């Protein structure tokens, strides 16, 4: 009788399911997400190679299977069959633990990301999110802040100076950009008034996407997400021209492969966060059809398709950037994080908070009108930022010249620290 109660069918498919059904549904969702995610990670490595080939006017891998689609399986088999090497004097336990630690946080974040509108079943309404935590957003921040351990420990445990330098760079870089990232998302929370990701999505379906309402925050989040995932132009921890391969220099076979896998896993997770926080999550734009009940299977499928296409777009964007921009220098990386992104995001929080306060006092309800005012302010701010404050500095450094003062500073530094013999002075 107990089991019958646990798995009871409910009269209305729009109400909450019973406990037993809830547990089974959660396990099923976990398995489904894990499968889709792993396949996605595998094929994003393939996409990276094909897109890079397309950008560089090459063919890319196209021999294994139709259009090279089985290349992923070939890579996997190769990596598992290869011989593994362990460096001498390495810290064995941490050396083995590090690749796992690099991968797991990216995966855990998916537990709280909503990927579709609720699905009605004969046993009740199933929310299309593994765990709808009341602190969902903070959970994603917390888990992404733990993601650095894998890289740092890989660098330290290898007992190799290049690996150690890579690990050091990774920890400094991730801490620096985490702050700007956190500050940029404060604005999102100001608008939604809550830290539950479902609330963030609901707010965006009412007022318009946060990418339009909070474009500056979205811009900062995007840049920080690149830094957090160690992707070009922020891949200093594995800069091959300086550090051989950085933190994974000593790794081989499948353990090495875990690091690229975790990079792509992080990339997909960051894309999903970008889509959820700033691009409406599973919300279909220009219509309220998907946000209002009664929920149907068709709505669930449509919103899931919408969410996946947003995520895939950002994955493509990551790849696109990688084959477009060169790597930063280390001091540029640090000054971008601390001297530019952090002050801008702090100032922006003040602007958004005072705008929200003013609009609330003026009696504007949270809706399209509220969004329109914020959108107007953002157009002005983005214009100021990109065309006045940034003229020839960051966005367009490739064709801009250094000003006289900086050239002199660099020259002075290079003379002082040069390892070449100094020019012989007259009379010596």
């Amino acid at each position, binding site marked *: 009788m107990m089991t019958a109660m646990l798995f009871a069918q409910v009269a209305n498919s729009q109400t909450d399911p019973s*406990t037993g059904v*809830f547990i089974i549904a959660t396990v099923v969702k976990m398995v489904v997400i894990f499968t889709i995610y792993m396949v996605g990670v595998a094929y994003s490595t393939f996409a990276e190679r094909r897109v890079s080939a397309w950008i560089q006017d090459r063919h890319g891998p196209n021999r294994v299977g139709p259009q090279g689609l089985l290349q992923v399986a070939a890579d996997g088999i190769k990596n598992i069959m290869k011989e593994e090497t362990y460096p001498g004097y390495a*810290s064995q336990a*941490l050396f083995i633990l590090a690749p796992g630690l690099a991968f797991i946080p990216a995966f855990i974040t998916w537990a709280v990301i909503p990927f579709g509108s609720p699905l009605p079943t004969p046993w009740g309404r199933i929310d299309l999110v593994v765990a709808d*935590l*009341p*602190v969902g957003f*903070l*959970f994603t*921040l*917390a*888990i992404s*802040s*733990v993601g*650095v*351990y894998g890289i*740092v*420990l890989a*660098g*330290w445990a290898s007992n190799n100076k290049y690996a*150690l330098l890579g*690990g*050091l760079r990774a*920890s*400094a870089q*991730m*801490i620096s950009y*985490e702050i700007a990232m956190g500050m940029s998302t404060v604005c999102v929370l100001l608008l939604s*008034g*809550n*830290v*539950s990701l479902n*609330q963030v999505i609901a707010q965006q379906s009412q007022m318009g996407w946060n990418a339009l309402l909070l474009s500056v925050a979205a811009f900062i989040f995007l840049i920080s997400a690149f830094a957090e995932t160690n992707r070009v132009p922020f891949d200093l921890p594995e800069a091959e021209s300086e550090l051989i391969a950085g933190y994974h220099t000593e790794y081989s076979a499948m353990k090495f492969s875990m690091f690229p896998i975790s990079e792509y896993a992080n990339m997909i997770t960051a894309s999903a966060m970008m889509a959820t926080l700033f691009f409406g999550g599973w919300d279909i734009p220009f219509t309220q059809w998907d946000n209002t009940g009664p929920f149907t299977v068709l709505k669930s499928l449509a919103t899931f398709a919408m969410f996946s296409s947003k995520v895939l777009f950002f994955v493509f964007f990551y790849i696109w950037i990688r084959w477009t921009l060169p790597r930063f220098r280390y001091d540029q990386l640090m000054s971008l994080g601390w001297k530019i992104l952090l002050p801008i995001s702090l100032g922006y929080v003040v602007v958004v908070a005072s705008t929200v306060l003013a609009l609330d006092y003026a009696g504007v309800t949270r809706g399209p009108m509220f969004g329109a005012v914020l959108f107007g302010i953002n157009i002005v701010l983005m214009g100021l930022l990109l065309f006045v404050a940034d003229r020839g500095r960051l966005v367009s450094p490739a064709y801009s010249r250094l000003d006289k003062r900086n050239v002199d500073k660099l020259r002075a530094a290079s003379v002082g620290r040069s390892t070449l013999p100094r020019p012989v002075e007259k009379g010596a």
Partner: protein
Amino acid sequence: MQNEFLPLFYTFHFYLFGLIALVGAIVFVTRKSPVAAALWLVVVMFALAALYVMLDAQFVGMMQILVYAGAIMVVFLFVVMLLNLGHPSDLNDMRGKLGRLLAGLVGLALVAELMALTRSEVTMKLVVPPVENAAAGTAGIIGPIAGPLFKEYLLAFELTSVLLLVAIIGAVVLAKKRSN
């Protein structure tokens, strides 16, 4: 929902995380390698976060991971690696027997104090009665914390942040002096 339907499940996990935290803490203070010690401390932080979440203090739990495990311990590791303190032999500065004995006694005294406090009536007086907050429904789980912090206790909160700012400026000043 879970702790009504599955009390055993809940109790088992509560004690499990408590055990993990205790074992992690003991291993943490007995490691000689600073990196290993730091990682065991991270384990303790996670176990504590789990306990907070199980006590319905999700916000505190998440902050535990975000601030302690994600930021402070990463900086610890960074410093340890930067100074290359990784080799235990260099760091063998365990105090003598007297020091250990003293530390053990202080620890026992603290545990005894905790035990006594849980049985005394003082703790019951300190418990704040749950506030009927009309806004709690819309503000979710953060509202009950943010409300008092930014309304009743705003001055204390801001003074604390000034204190932190002073510490940061002090650190910058000290670092500048050394480089000159």
